[in-house]
């Protein structure tokens, strides 16, 4: 390869599309193909057969009979089949139809009078002048000309042209043979073709009816030898065999003067085979199948669609230096890290350029070989798989040759070192819907066979651990590595470009843990949980805490011994930056509680942070979770992503640590409610049924007052839905009154760790009305939903009202209705994902080449301006405060606070 030539960016001047003329096809051909057989009994390709050696080489070691080159260098050469009778090309059927409709069968001219013709010529000239797409005009010409009934040139009547899909043409109902079509097309004069959108220099319409079929080179349809020694041919070869067989029979029959009917049948069969050879999914004809019943993959199928050449091999490619395996969680890793199995690390390499500075180090690496034994105290050290020498030769490093390779190493070579701790890699989960689906992590090589990462990274990847797999890509250049580190690291993605807040935050147990640690739990004298100093030390050790220890106090324990304790709030405060000042309502605060009430220490629902000390409030979803996390948001904005990452790493560890010491669990008896409450809910359900019956009765006797703009039926349904909705809400209130924060499920729901009060009330209280398409269940049997009910029953039970709770269990009819509602949800998601996937694809294809230029404008690769200023305000949303350039509230409070303190002010 000549680097000076191939590396030059080239600009495409113009492209021209045309059809191959029969002459060109024969000119391109290396040989005529006449036999359908491929190999003889000895396994040698038959001359003038489909595997003729002149069509190229596929067997290593052999040379091409046409160009004399070996496998890989010989591009392959076309052959041709002379067709006994012409056949229409499916891909051109539409154009042929348009031409037949707009030209005269007698004289071939387009059916325009001189006057109209001149008008069209003028429009066409202006189109070509301005470089506009002439095919737009061609469509109009075809439409206008096909309305003409008599040729203005020779006076011949122009019949109606119909098409029997895909390739049969009829004139006034009489079938035309491809030969007749071809004769007609031959008559169309060159000067009329531009009007029809064709360039006569490269495309004569009669070429759309094939008289000779090009046979693609064997390199395009190689035969595979199976293990059993059996040869298996490519689908295209199979199809070409069919074409040749029928072509031969057709020729023999025709030459022998067989009856017209037989010849026509064979002709149509030839047309079928050639049509499916081009496109095996042509509408109107059955697809050609393999003996096994599998449809053949012919030319169109090779190119089209997701698995076709374009999308599967040109827009996207398989890559080296990548790994894929199952994922699992590891709460001890930083969010920036990814755990990589040793087996992967041994296979994946990072290129290291050998320089005088690192020469000795590289030699030492090579001496380790490709599977070094780790020294004591270590589980893994990287070895070297290959050394790439300056002349481009690659040497595989093994235990046997490593000394030799190390000795002969020279500066300028590249050592392909195995993956090591700290290497930057890209980590990705499909579907890659947003930029957080592909982030840079630093590697930690560890035992085991899964990729591991910390749990705050689950939401951005939308990953869980029920068998999900993810991909890892090892960066191969310095530039790529630093770019990934600066732009793609997990910590750089904590803040979302979507809403200018944190999208990565603490989840599940982190939130429960921190809430239990910091919340007073109705004890006005507490400052969060009371930890014995030993426990507090353990928790702090988890986060690797160094610095001023939190305040310790002494108290007598239940046995009367004096012990040292640490408050949970003080423990949490060790994670906060000293200059942090925040006040906000906690997520656990019941809605409607006044600020004054929430601030009371026994409630502890108002978070107050002064100079990095948590003074009051329980830390929950509102403080540290994604989307809502106020503390996380403040730290990342004020102290940057690195500090936010550190905070997140520690806050998750402190949460897990405390929860491990304290113990936390939820079980089925968290959904237990007293019998009295159960009876209350059952009574509410009975009351609802009575009310629904009353509504139905008033509907039946016509006394129901219709709502404005609604029919009686609609009014009835709306009123009933309201009743059943109230029943579920009422049950929810009963459940809520029976369970408190000592209930783990309630605690998790209130602090935002997992689940909701609705989930809980459905589990313990009442599931509620089931709906399909927003309406009560109404379909099923004749005039009723299930055979358990009477015809026309409009009552609550017959239409999907589920009064049971999940804990109590559903009745059979309730269960059925619940399944109907559940099915709708599943179908909806399935439909939504496929539709939004296609939308996403189109959007990305349209936007993929846009970037923000140095001046803040948005441009595409052609340099065209798309937007004069990014987002019109030029603000990077990831660095914004909820989309705003400046957070005035923050600035004002900061100024106020600093001036109060008498420090140097200003923000």
């Amino acid at each position, binding site marked *: 390869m000549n680097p000076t030539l191939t590396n030059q960016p080239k600009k495409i001047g113009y492209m021209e599309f045309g059809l191959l003329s029969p002459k060109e096809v024969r000119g391109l051909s290396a040989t005529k193909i006449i036999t359908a057989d491929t190999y003889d009994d000895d396994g040698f390709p038959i001359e003038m057969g489909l595997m003729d050696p002149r069509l190229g080489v596929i067997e290593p070691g052999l040379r091409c009979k046409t160009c004399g080159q070996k496998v890989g260098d010989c591009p392959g050469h076309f052959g041709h089949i002379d067709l006994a009778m012409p056949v229409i090309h499916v891909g051109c059927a539409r154009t042929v139809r348009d031409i037949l409709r707009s030209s005269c069968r007698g004289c071939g001219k387009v059916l325009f009078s001189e006057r109209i013709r001149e008008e069209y010529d003028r429009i066409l000239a202006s189109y070509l002048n301005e470089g*506009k797409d002439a095919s737009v005009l061609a469509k109009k010409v075809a439409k206008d000309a096909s309305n003409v009934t008599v040729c203005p040139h020779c006076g011949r009547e122009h019949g109606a042209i119909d098409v029997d899909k895909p390739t049969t043409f009829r004139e006034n109902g009489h079938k035309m043979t491809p030969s007749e079509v071809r004769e007609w097309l031959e008559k169309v004069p060159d000067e009329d073709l531009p009007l029809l959108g064709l360039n006569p220099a490269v495309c004569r319409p009669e070429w759309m009816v094939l008289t000779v079929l090009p046979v693609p080179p064997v390199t395009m349809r190689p035969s595979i030898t199976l293990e059993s020694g059996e040869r298996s041919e490519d689908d295209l070869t199979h199809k070409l065999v069919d074409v040749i067989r029928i072509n031969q029979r057709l020729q023999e029959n025709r030459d022998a003067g067989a009856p017209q009917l037989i010849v026509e049948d064979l002709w149509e069969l030839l047309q079928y085979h050639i049509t499916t050879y081009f496109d095996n999914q042509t509408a109107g004809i059955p697809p050609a199948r393999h003996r096994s019943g599998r449809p053949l993959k012919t030319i169109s199928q090779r190119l089209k669609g997701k698995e076709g050449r374009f999308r599967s091999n040109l827009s996207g490619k398989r890559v080296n230096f990548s790994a894929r395996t199952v994922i699992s969680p590891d709460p001890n890793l930083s969010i920036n890290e990814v755990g990589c199995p040793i087996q992967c690390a041994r296979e994946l390499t990072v290129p290291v350029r050998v320089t005088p500075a690192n020469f000795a180090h590289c030699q030492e690496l090579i001496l380790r070989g490709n599977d070094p034994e780790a020294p004591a105290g270590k589980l893994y050290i990287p070895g070297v798989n290959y050394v790439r020498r300056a002349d481009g030769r690659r040497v595989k490093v093994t235990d046997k040759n490593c000394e030799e390779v190390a000795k002969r190493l020279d500066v300028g070579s590249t050592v392909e070192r195995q993956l090591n701790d700290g290497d930057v890699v890209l980590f990705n989960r499909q579907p890659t819907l947003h930029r957080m689906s592909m982030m840079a992590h630093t590697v930690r090589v560890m035992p085991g066979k899964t990729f591991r990462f910390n749990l705050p990274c689950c939401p951005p990847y939308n990953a869980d651990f029920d068998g999900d797999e993810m991909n890892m890509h090892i960066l191969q250049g310095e530039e790529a590595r630093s770019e990934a580190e600066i732009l793609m690291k997990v910590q750089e993605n904590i803040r979302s470009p979507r809403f200018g807040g944190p999208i990565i935050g603490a989840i599940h147990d982190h939130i429960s843990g921190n809430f239990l640690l910091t919340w007073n739990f109705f004890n006005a004298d507490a400052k969060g949980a009371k930890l014995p100093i030993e426990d507090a030390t353990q928790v702090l050790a988890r986060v690797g805490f160094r610095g001023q220890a939190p305040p310790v106090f002494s108290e007598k324990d239940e046995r009367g011994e004096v012990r040292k304790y640490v408050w949970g709030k003080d423990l949490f405060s060790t994670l906060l930056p000293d200059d942090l000042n925040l006040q906000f309502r906690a997520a656990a605060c019941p809605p409607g509680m006044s600020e004054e009430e929430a601030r009371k220490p026994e409630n502890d629902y108002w978070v107050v942070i002064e100079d990095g000390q948590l003074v009051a409030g329980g830390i929950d979803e509102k403080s540290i979770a994604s989307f809502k996390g106020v503390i996380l948001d403040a730290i990342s904005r004020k102290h940057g992503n690195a500090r936010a990452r550190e905070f997140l790493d520690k806050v998750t560890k402190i949460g897990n640590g405390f929860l491990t010491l304290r113990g936390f669990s939820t079980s089925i008896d968290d959904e237990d409610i007293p019998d009295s409450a159960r009876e209350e809910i059952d009574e509410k359900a009975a009351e609802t049924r009575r009310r629904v019956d009353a509504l139905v009765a008033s509907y039946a006797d016509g006394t129901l007052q219709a709502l404005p703009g609604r029919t009686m039926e609609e009014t009835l349904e709306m009123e009933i839905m309201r009743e059943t909705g109230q029943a579920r809400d009422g049950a929810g209130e009963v459940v809520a009154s029976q369970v408190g924060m000592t209930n783990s499920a309630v605690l998790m729901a209130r602090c935002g760790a997992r689940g909701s009060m609705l989930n809980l009330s459905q589990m313990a209280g009442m599931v509620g009305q089931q709906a399909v398409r927003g309406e009560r269940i109404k379909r099923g049997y004749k005039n009723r939903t299930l055979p358990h009910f009477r015809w026309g029953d409009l009552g609550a039970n017959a239409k999907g009202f589920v009064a049971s709770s999940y804990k109590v269990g559903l009745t059979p009819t309730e269960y059925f209705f619940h399944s109907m509602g559940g099915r709708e949800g599943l179908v909806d998601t399935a439909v939504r994902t496929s539709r939004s996937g296609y939308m996403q694809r189109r959007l990305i294809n349209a936007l993929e080449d846009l970037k923000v230029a140095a001046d803040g404008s948005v441009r595409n690769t052609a340099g065209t301006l798309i937007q004069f200023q990014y987002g019109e305000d030029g603000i990077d949303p990831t660095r914004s405060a909820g989309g705003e350039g400046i957070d005035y509230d923050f600035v004002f409070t900061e100024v106020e606070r600093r001036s109060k303190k008498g420090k140097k002010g200003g923000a």
Partner: protein
Amino acid sequence: MTDEDLRFNVLNHEIVPLHEILPEDEVAPLLETYDIVKEQLPKIKSSDPAVKVVGAKPGQVVRITRASPTAGRFTAYRLVVEAI
């Protein structure tokens, strides 16, 4: 332009932003600011109702001043091109 065409002036509608022809002497400085040639500007068809109202001809540049949810007020420019 016929009376028929102007019977309804789209520019008077509240959601149609202000369109005006950019004076000839302001075109060159605009292109210089962004270091582009005219054809690299966003395009607008001469058949666009707003372009018809201001009477811009192909080759001229229109300035569009509109309310922006992010920036308050934003100015964009478009090159008028022949309608196909």
